[in-house]
């Protein structure tokens, strides 16, 4: 910034600037504490015993015991198969992430690269349906899956990810800024087929977009509670096990094992937190991009 502006402001605003800075840091630190305190308690509580009243500020020594109890047959009979819940959650999240990212890129590629009559209409259609919440068609979706005999199956939680309008939109945006059509032209001249061009030349260029959208769709599926609750009954994803735990606290507090439950919550959020902390820079940039750049 120009130096002149600084000089003018300096004489009058030095003290007020300092005060504003102190206020800003105080508020920020307070927010950091509010945001992190619940997770701190969660980790502490995961090391505590079965009955937990009140707050403890430091770790206890019950962690290994909680681990043992979480995976034993008693916990299984009460909350469902703990191992399997991680398996189902991972299977559903990984596959729906892969499907939505790949097919959204393919769709965006089609509309970005080719010239055809319905191109504009297809693009507008996808933009419009981006606003339709899944909840509005959930009843019809549930009844349809029931008719197909797909209730309590993971298929209805995976296959629909092929059509992900929001991911399409991001991919389209990314291609406009980073996919020069000359590359496609060059591949054609070299005799590369259209499908192969997409798979072996375009996909590598899209890697950064894949990473950002991949994380978002994976996390979205991992955290999803509404759809699995609608479709699954005997199989349980992580949020459904959490629901079983919640029911036990509400209905049968004497037998509820708080240490086990807190440990399970830690394990449920841990993978996402680790990935987030490693990639937070890119994730935050991705959100900001989504907000403004047009």
């Amino acid at each position, binding site marked *: *910034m120009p130096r002149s*502006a600084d000089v*003018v*402001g300096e004489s009058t605003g030095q003290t007020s*600037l300092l005060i504003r*800075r102190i206020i800003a*840091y105080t508020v*920020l630190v307070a*927010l950091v504490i*509010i*945001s*992190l305190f619940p997770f701190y*308690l969660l980790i502490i509580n995961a090391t505590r015993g079965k009955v937990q*009243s009140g*707050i403890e500020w430091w770790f206890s020594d019950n962690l290994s015991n909680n681990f043992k109890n979480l995976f034993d047959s008693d916990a299984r009979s009460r909350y469902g198969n703990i191992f399997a819940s991680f398996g189902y959650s991972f299977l559903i999240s990984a596959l729906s992430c892969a499907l939505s990212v790949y*097919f959204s890129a*393919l769709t965006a590629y*089609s*509309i970005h690269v*080719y010239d*055809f*009559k*319905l191109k504009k209409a297809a693009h507008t259609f*996808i933009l419009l349906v981006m*606003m339709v*919440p*899944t*909840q*509005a*068609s*959930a*009843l*019809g*979706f*549930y*009844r349809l899956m029931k008719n197909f005999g797909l209730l309590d199956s993971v298929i209805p939680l995976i*296959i629909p990810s*092929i*059509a992900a309008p*929001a991911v399409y939109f991001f991919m389209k945006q990314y291609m406009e800024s980073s996919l020069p059509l000359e590359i496609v*032209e060059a591949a054609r001249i070299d005799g590369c087929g259209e*499908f192969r061009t997409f798979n072996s030349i375009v996909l590598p260029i899209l890697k950064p977009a894949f990473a950002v959208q991949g994380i978002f769709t994976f996390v979205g599926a991992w*955290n999803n*509670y*509404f759809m699995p*609750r609608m479709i699954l009954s005997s199989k349980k994803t*992580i949020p459904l096990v*959490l*629901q079983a735990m919640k029911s036990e606290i509400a209905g049968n507090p004497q037998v509820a094992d708080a240490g086990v439950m807190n440990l399970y919550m830690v394990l449920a*959020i841990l993978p996402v*937190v680790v990935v987030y902390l490693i990639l*937070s820079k890119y994730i*935050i940039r991705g*959100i900001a*991009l*989504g*907000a*403004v*750049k*047009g």
Partner: protein
Amino acid sequence: MKKKSISYAKWGYIFLIPFFVAYLIFAVVPLVQTFYFSVLDYKVDTGMAPDIFNPDANVINKGFCGLDNFKFALSSEGEFLRCLGNTAIIWLIGFIPQIVVSLILAVWFTDIRLKLKAQGFFKTVIYLPNVIMASAISLLFYTLCIRNGALDTLLNKGSDLAITEKVWGARGVVGFINFIMWYGNTTIMLMAAIMGIDTSLYESAQIDGASPTQTFWKITIPLIKPILAYVLITSMIGGLQMFDVPQFIGGNQAGPKGSLKTVVMIIQNGKDSAIGSVGAISVMIFIISAILGFLTLKVMSDNSGKPKKKKPARK
């Protein structure tokens, strides 16, 4: 780019097939079916004992009934309006602090004179709750806020505060969780908007001796109005879909006196029984979302001449 000799148009269509087929089967057909259900007098008596010789004996489908389901849902007997009211109240409890805090933080983070340090750290921490499973955060808060939970110990020295057993306490907890989960996201969006403002505006305001408060109300707010409107409307769309948090905090009774029952819960609860009336409620959710969606599009395109990027509705 157009090649006259070879037409590649066919590939364009081929590559669109997976998306559109999947969308047709898993979104369009269910939506049409939901609209169809909404005008049927269609119930399933789930209380009836199953009959192995006639599995459909408990299905009561009297066919087309016009707008009766809608009339019922909007009448005082139907719960739609009450649940919509609950949803709106809980949304407001979370949204008001969210927009205020986010605006303040966004202004601070972008202030060229304030020059805050460790911004990356702060942003990472305040956005963190957004990536964490809503059901896990809710269960955690539930265990903290129930009778004899940590909050009781902290605030009331061991006696029973039992905040989740009171109407406004329970709503407050849900609103607070929504706030914690979303203020980081809103801050980052508003920051991006503020950084898009020409810095020379701020510099000349500074030379003219404008105070930070004046700059905020006279420059920042007017220029980020479209993004503010966008944040407001998308948050409303997200609020309308609220389910996980109130369901975990409220349980089967949906909170004290049903005060946490949101509109989406009606769908989840009635999907096997009250098919006609749940259909009508889904259609109303669709209509409200559509209106909000078009408002978003309008706000975004009015201010830039070209359509801007949209984020998916919040869950």
